[in-house]
């Protein structure tokens, strides 16, 4: 592969010690049928207190990337390669026990479906207290007091009563808040969020997003937020990494990526959002569908759907071209493409 693998360091990270550095991350799934790549050569960095959104469609490898950071993939059926340095330690080489101390304490995770992530047979209070006790060795009273504090932090009304509630007794929004409370129980430095608002109603989703943004700022947590929704990314992200077929095709600040995208896929995604489209015309949809990961095309994986593709694109995979202060784009023709549409043209204008 000709791709330069080192990415340019974020200058803002050079000052503060980076919280997380991911370099050349690869994930393969192994089955009887063979080896299927899911994540291919992904690199990014995260400073403390920063929010990175990994944006992509289903099968793009965004959730797998997130899980790989915590080594939450099925052992034996998956292989993770590359480097994931969290506060200088390589998570991928860490012994099991150290990893367990990391999980839930310094790094924690929230999921799309709180019903499956919360244990149905324990009360919310018990579940938070258990995490607190496991990681800090606090007494039960202290842990319960902590649980109450956390429920108030995530603004669950009548928190005291909700401590004794079981997950199924809560509404969808409250359940998601409860899961956030569980994940914050040890004040993690890094929060990993896997589409935590996708299953929620619009009026509830916005509440949870605002809450997460506030908590993240107040607690100074670095956050990686996986989503397929451009609107969610716009609402919460400082930086955005757009994934396609297992690779990060565009990486940059939220403004750069959403208002001034370079990669044809990122541009196509933005152009095809329905929001604000004139009603009497077709939407500029990206033709075709994402490739089968078991059978990736040679060259750029987006080439078969790309309006700008040339022979080169079908032959060789593009390297990373630096863009903006720290970002990069993976496209052969990034310099040749006409300057992207003026900021916000495809977005509802302000």
């Amino acid at each position, binding site marked *: 592969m000709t791709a330069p693998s080192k990415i340019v360091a974020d200058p803002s990270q050079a000052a503060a010690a980076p919280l997380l550095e991911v370099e050349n991350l690869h994930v393969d799934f192994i089955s009887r049928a063979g080896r299927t790549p899911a994540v291919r050569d992904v690199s990014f960095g995260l400073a403390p207190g920063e929010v990175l959104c990994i944006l992509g469609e289903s099968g793009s490898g965004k959730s797998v990337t997130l899980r790989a950071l915590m080594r939450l993939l099925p052992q034996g059926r998956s292989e993770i390669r590359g480097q994931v340095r969290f506060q200088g330690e390589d998570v991928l080489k860490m012994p099991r026990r150290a990893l367990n101390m990391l999980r839930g304490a310094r790094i924690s995770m929230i999921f799309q479906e709180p019903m499956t992530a919360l244990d149905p047979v324990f009360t919310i209070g018990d579940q938070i207290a258990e995490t607190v006790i496991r990681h800090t060795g606090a007494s039960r009273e202290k842990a319960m007091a902590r649980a109450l504090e956390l429920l108030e932090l995530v603004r669950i009304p009548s928190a005291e009563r909700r401590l004794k509630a079981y997950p199924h007794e809560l509404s969808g929004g409250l359940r998601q808040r409860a899961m956030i409370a569980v994940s914050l129980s040890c004040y993690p430095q890094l929060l990993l969020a896997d589409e935590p608002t996708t299953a929620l109603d619009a009026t509830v989703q916005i509440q949870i997003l605002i809450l997460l943004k506030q908590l993240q700022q107040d607690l100074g947590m670095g956050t990686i937020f996986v989503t397929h929704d451009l609107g969610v990314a716009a609402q919460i992200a400082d930086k955005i990494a757009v994934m396609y077929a297992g690779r990060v095709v565009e990486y940059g600040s939220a403004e750069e990526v959403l*208002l001034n995208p370079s990669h044809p896929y990122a541009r196509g995604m933005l152009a095809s959002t329905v929001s604000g489209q004139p009603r009497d015309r077709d939407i500029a949809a990206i033709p075709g569908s994402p490739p089968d990961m078991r059978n990736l095309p040679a060259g750029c994986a987006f080439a078969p759907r790309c309006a700008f593709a040339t022979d080169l694109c079908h032959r060789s995979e593009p390297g990373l071209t630096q863009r903006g202060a720290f970002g990069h784009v993976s496209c052969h023709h990034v310099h040749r493409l006409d300057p992207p549409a003026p900021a916000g043209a495809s977005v509802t204008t302000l």
Partner: protein
Amino acid sequence: MMNFFKLTKATVAAPADPRDRGGPRQPMLIARNLRKHFPITGGLLGRTVASVRAVDDVSFAVRKGETLGVVGESGCGKSTLAKLLMHLVPPDSGELIFDGLEVGARDGLRLRDLRRNMQMVFQDSASSLNPRMPIEESVAYGPRVHGMGRAQARAHAISLLEQVGLPARLFAGRYPHELSGGQKQRVNIARALALDPRMLILDEAVSALDKSVEAQVLNLLRRLKAEFNLTYLFISHDLHVVQYISDRVMVMYLGEVVEIGPVERIYASATHPYTRALLASQLHADPRARVTEPPITGDPPNPVNPPGGCRFHTRCPFAETICSQTAPALTPLPAASEHVVACHMADPASGHTRAGAQARPGLVPSAFADTPGPDRTSKEGVRA
């Protein structure tokens, strides 16, 4: 009988549909006082202890050739409504009138004929196709049931698959597991068209799709609507999609209709506080237009034993005593008779202190004024 199945391409040229009965002014579908309560039984004797009031006294009309968008959050009854219209779930009460004929009435329209004229596209593309059947057979099944010969039904299915962008030589023999989500949804659409219906009910038909595929399917739906002379009832929770595709929009909350109006009016000057909150909750792909205060707090209440009076009063920033006492009726706004709202504030005689304020544009309550951006920006887009 057989010309019923003929592809309707011809009808595009001729504006008058030969299947039309009631004339252009007769709505395609009228629903009157539809009601469905699902009982919740409990105890040893299986007595009804409560009921989910999924759809409560819902009335509306769908005009010929239009797209009526139906929006609302989970539990608002929009999916039950779709099944009631198709009679997949029998309504407790209420009536349906399809092109002037009452469904199930003695001299009206038989259920079987309603279903031939009105078809449904389901949300979950995974469970909406029989996994053991090649897609071509799934599409041909409806016409076969209605008596079409095997070879003819097959040819019909193949031509429909081509119409929805699935070349038969590549796709006809495939099984659902060999298709992507978007392709399955195209098959669903082809199947719905197989009986040559005049109206399609699209229940969250693009919600499960990835955004780039969603755009393709929306384009397809737009094209088919013109080509097959269709009327759509488009149910979705996504306000962006509804704005793009609908001519008129109906907003539901906890089993009731709270507002119906032309799409421009709903998106530019929504009157019901719930509609306004819903619109203000929309996310936009612009990081400069972040929302910092939630438009409303709390979750939609459980449709089991919903609150009395106006069902929205528990979450409404403008709720007053009257709101918890009497349920507001759907009334047309004086400014635009097309625009119907169920809110005491829109009724000058209701006794609500803000009553009448909303009737005049520009005097809308300002609780949402502190949410900068998105909802206002989208309005400008529509007005322009």
